[in-house]
């Protein structure tokens, strides 16, 4: 496949591994922020091609994982209301709430549907004017433009039976939260390429400068990841802390202006609670007042009170790179993809699921 195979070239990956080994003279700990990158790393066995002194830790970039329990409960509550059609990306359905998951709600008769795009949900609302169609707007900067577009289109074309349950989060504040932790071991970041495709990488310059950490914008294929790691190691060895773009085929410094414009039209930043981590200032998106009528929480009057996490679940520490999934006592015993305690064991971007599925548990 063009544009993919060349970035999965085994020989090139091995060569980059050798270059990283030659460049790294000391121990370095590098965090890949995005869960998609975590999965590539484990799915391709890429860690096994790195020298022992370059350690990877996995970051909070799994939108499903950081969606607070209260919002999942609210989603379930809304889905169970008569007349509601609750739509979501598939990932979200298996995540356990405090009582039920959306799958459980579906088994109890709720109309829960998987969609591939929020625009499909708007279309569904148009076709079923007698029903209330809700879309679970989960994701980082990557999914925000499409979700903003859905709301904007619904507003413009008068689709009043459509609303969204907003759970949007932003990457740079989360990186700062990781760095601010007294236990933080992260010395450099691979910044998520897809997020930067939309939002550019200007925002990371302040992070790099303030905390003195290299930030390398990195893609998702094995060759991309190796190139990102090589650039990060070289910066660390040179004592530099810059933002470097190693995903230039997709990312520009200013990002995608049109996408940013539609997001800014519909959403504004807000403080947000991250599941397992806590509240992070300016780390989320909420609907602007002009679009507040599309807010599903308000429309359905759903509860969002604080709920307790299962005590055994260490998801917060895993998401901040403080704990390897395999070091969690519940991993693979009380917590498996079939009976998950926390979201990282469920999501296709969750670190625990990646270790469980691809064999991190055996090493």
């Amino acid at each position, binding site marked *: *496949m063009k544009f*993919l195979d060349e970035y999965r070239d085994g020989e090139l*990956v091995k060569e980059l591994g050798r270059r990283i080994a030659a460049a790294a003279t000391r121990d370095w700990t590098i965090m890949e922020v995005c869960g998609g990158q975590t999965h590539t790393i484990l799915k391709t066995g890429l860690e*096994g091609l790195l020298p022992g002194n370059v350690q990877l830790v996995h970051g909070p970039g799994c*939108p499903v994982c950081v969606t607070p329990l209260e919002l999942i409960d609210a989603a379930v509550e809304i889905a169970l209301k008569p007349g509601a059609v609750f739509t979501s990306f598939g990932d979200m359905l298996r995540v356990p709430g405090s009582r039920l998951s959306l799958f459980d709600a579906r088994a109890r008769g709720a109309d829960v549907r998987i969609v591939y795009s929020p625009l499909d949900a708007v279309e569904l609302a148009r076709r079923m004017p007698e029903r209330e169609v809700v879309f679970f707007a989960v994701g980082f900067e990557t999914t925000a433009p499409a979700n903003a577009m859905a709301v904007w289109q619904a507003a413009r074309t008068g689709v009043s039976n459509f609303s969204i349950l907003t759970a949007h989060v932003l990457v740079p504040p989360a990186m700062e939260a990781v760095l601010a932790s007294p236990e933080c071991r992260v010395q450099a970041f691979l910044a998520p390429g897809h997020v930067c495709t939309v939002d550019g990488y200007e925002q990371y310059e302040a992070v790099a400068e303030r905390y003195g950490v290299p930030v390398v914008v990195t893609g998702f294929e094995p060759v991309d990841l190796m190139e990102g790691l090589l650039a990060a190691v070289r910066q660390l060895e040179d004592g530099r802390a810059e933002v470097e773009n190693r995903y230039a085929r997709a990312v520009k410094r200013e990002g995608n202006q049109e996408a940013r414009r539609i997001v800014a039209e519909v959403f504004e930043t807000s403080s947000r609670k991250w599941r397992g981590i806590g509240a992070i200032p300016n780390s989320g998106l909420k609907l602007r007042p002009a679009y507040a009528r599309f807010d599903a929480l308000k429309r359905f009057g759903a509860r969002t009170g604080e709920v307790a996490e299962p005590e055994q679940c260490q998801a917060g520490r895993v998401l901040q790179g403080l704990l390897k999934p395999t070091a969690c006592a519940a991993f693979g015993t009380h917590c*498996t993809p079939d009976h998950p305690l926390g979201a990282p064991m469920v999501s*296709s971007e969750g670190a625990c699921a990646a270790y*469980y*599925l691809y064999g991190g548990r*055996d090493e």
Partner: protein
Amino acid sequence: MAHGGGGRMTERLIEDVFLPAFGGAELGRRHDGAYLPQSRRRLAVTTDSFVVKPLLFPGGSIGGLAVHGTVNDLAMCGARPLYLTAGFILEEGLEIRLLRGIVDDMARAAKESGVEIITADTKVVERGKGDGVYINTSGIGECLIGETGPWRVEPGDAVIVSGDLGRHGIAILSVREGIEFTTRIESDAMALWPAVAALIDAGVEIHCLRDLTRGGLSSALNEIARARGVEINIDEASIPVSAAVRGACEFLGLDPLYVANEGRFCVIVPGGEAARTVEALKASGLAAEACVIGALREGRSRVVMKTRIGGRRIVDMLSGEQLPRIC
């Protein structure tokens, strides 16, 4: 449609739709059951139910699937498929034209597979209580070789697949989700017996046959590894997946190792028989892309894959259905 009460309407359904299509001598006798001639060989029996949605998809229909699914299970026992029974659960309001198409497809598949439909049953359920048509088929076949199964595999054996993976699952998904790809991906649904017969004719020593239906290659290999307590090593670079299916999987966030097939199987043979097995499969004209993808060795009950870039990872069973990811 309002058939199924057992009266004249059911009679008409049988006369107009089922008998003309299936038309075998045994079914034509219209008795409560079928009589079978005595067999000198050991028999194999299997049953399967089909609830696929949509009923028609690129490259087939639920009718063909209901035949192939069952005769393929017989083939995986090393048995030549002989007879099929068919049970239909029809939803009230189903278009007769659609049913006729499905039944014709079923008759065609049965003819191609060399099986006779010897007895059948029809029930109609209220509208809203079914997805158009559910079909159950049971099959009887005669074993041309001794028992094969996971208990016979040994360390040192080779794993061979009969062709490229993932077509059926992607074909179904593309219709169900209304996603069109530039290259139309057709289901791989087909009868596997002729390919298995070619192996038997060639005198290959078969340890285990497994079709790669629900759960795909990964489930089949994990089941074998667990049942026998061996490690199965596979090589990602050697697993055939067409460019179109790879592209669709990339796009949808699916892994072709877990996608269902309806016309593909894996065969496990002693290492020394591998080359001959591939040759016989290819010569059958039904498995042009057959190839060795891995081998068994002593170890823990698991499947380990050498990845395209030379890393290693576990290939686990799927938990529930594969869900499309967020980004």
